């Protein structure tokens, strides 16, 4: 069973995309790829999710924007990005050199019309494989999160985007809701092709000396290993109530974490904060994932998707 030479298949199919492995960097945790490309060949990734893109340039939130917390970090970047036109002209073409690397563009905004406009522009791009609809950023005022916490609003957003999108649409869900299953079901019924969860958990830390919130904008989004159990539970619950694929996100640092998300029901995963700790995190996690399969006699990683679900004896 533990044959070190065993040939294992860790590829997965996600929407219409074939991913050579289930690991992709999460939006906002990899910029547009150029910086990390000096550390390794991005072609080893299952896919890449680039930074949230809005209609117009955004300068983002005041500093400090990041703060370490126990086994995690808070961020309040505020969707700083150069706007969709420059993203399409200056950032995405660079990634086309990685021929088998699906590029997923995270779309954000403050009103449905903005999202629709960005999606329409991206739909003409040969450099895009899928859209990830960001209705869960906690760090912008009236920026997405109101769509991410109301099932009806989420559904209208998804319908509006699906009407113009030429690529598959993944909806990125917020954990900052009473019932994430209700949100997931509403998005699926409105036509979402896939779901990614979770975005960051809203949190805050106080600067004791200054007696005020440490982050420049007060609250921020908590990420890292501290939130992994929250994410696992949400993936586990959502998986049983939808038939579209789920992408697991939240505190993945190791190959074992990837396996855990897949067993909970994820078809693929996104790695976020780990990239900040270690620029080589993704290739290491991919190697560890393959190694886990070898060690456990798993010939195809697709066998373990949902393995921990009750219906599968979990």
């Amino acid at each position: 069973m533990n044959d070190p030479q065993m040939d294992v298949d860790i590829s997965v199919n996600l929407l219409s995309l074939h991913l050579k492995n289930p690991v992709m960097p999460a939006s906002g945790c990899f910029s547009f790829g150029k910086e990390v490309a000096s550390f390794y060949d991005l072609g080893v990734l299952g896919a890449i999710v680039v930074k949230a893109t809005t209609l117009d340039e955004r300068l983002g939130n005041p500093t400090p924007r990041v703060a370490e917390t126990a086994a995690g970090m808070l961020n309040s970047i505020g969707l700083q990005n150069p706007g969709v036109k420059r993203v399409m002209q200056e950032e995405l073409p660079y990634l086309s050199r990685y021929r088998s690397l699906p590029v997923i563009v995270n779309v954000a905004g403050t009103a449905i019309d903005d999202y629709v406009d960005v999606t329409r522009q991206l739909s003409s791009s040969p450099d895009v494989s899928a859209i990830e609809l960001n209705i869960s950023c906690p760090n912008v005022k009236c920026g997405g999160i109101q769509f991410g916490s109301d099932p009806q609003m989420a559904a209208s957003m998804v319908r509006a985007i699906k009407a113009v999108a030429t690529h598959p649409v993944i909806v990125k869900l917020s954990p900052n809701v009473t019932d994430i299953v209700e949100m997931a079901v509403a998005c699926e019924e409105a036509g979402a092709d896939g779901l990614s969860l979770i975005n960051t958990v809203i949190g805050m830390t106080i600067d004791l000396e200054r007696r005020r919130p440490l982050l420049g904008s007060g609250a921020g989004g908590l990420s890292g290993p501290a939130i992994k159990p929250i994410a696992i539970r949400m993936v586990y619950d959502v998986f049983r109530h939808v038939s579209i694929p789920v992408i697991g996100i939240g505190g993945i640092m190791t190959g074992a974490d990837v396996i855990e998300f897949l067993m909970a029901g994820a078809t693929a995963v996104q790695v976020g904060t780990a990239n900040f700790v270690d620029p080589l995190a993704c290739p290491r996690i991919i190697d560890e994932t393959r190694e886990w399969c070898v060690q456990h006699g798993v010939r195809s990683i697709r066998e373990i998707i949902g393995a921990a679900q009750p219906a599968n004896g979990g």
Partner: protein
Amino acid sequence: MAPMPDVEVFAHETLGKDLYALTFASPIDLRAGNYQPGQFLHIRVSQSFDFLLRRPLSLCYADVDQNRLTVVYRTQGAGTRRLTACKPGDVIDVLGPLGQGFPIRAQDHRTLLIGGGVGVPPLLELAKQLRASGKTVQTVVGFQTAGQLMLVEELAAYGEVTVMTDDGSAGTRGLVTTALTAELCSLADRYYACGPSPMLKAVQQTMRVRNVPGYLSLEERMGCGIGICVGCVHAVYRDGQLTNAKTCREGPVFDEREVVFA
């Protein structure tokens, strides 16, 4: 491919209260010369996940013959206190040197170095390199109090050092800007400053009045250190418009002309 970041610790000395000098094998071959004073090393304080983020510590001294780097740091929280536990022979995870350091300009003859508190360490490697390229070095350093002085003797090996303290317990009482007199500045072709933002803002204003060009090494809370998290931005005026530059990648050293303080 970037160098693998695991390196061996050679020395870890206590320089004063809460003040440490950590010397380790350089992740890059220093003889190739691909480093600058003012760059930083991004160091994990432990391999566990409880302290997740790296700590950016500025390069204080490069020993090219032994291929070793030294950083000098003050403990500021539980994370840096964890770092104090590492000892010679241990292996630590170091990325770097990262970022844009202090440029050394061929046309300059006389340089003025200005440091405040934990902004002083990068001035040591800078002073060494400026002297090695034949320039004179004049240094002004400021601290809150005598107990926080660091690297004054080491800096004095490269030129005259003026010490300022907030409470007058060492050197002269006052801020570093108090020492930046018209007379002193008239002897400088360029200045280099590193310290907390309020100090840098005051230095920038003073040196504009004195009409001396210079570089500022900015301090912002960093996440990744390589330009992907966009956490450590600082406002700059560039190409006719206000924008946010990544301190870790486009800095930490910036030409003072483009730096905008709130």
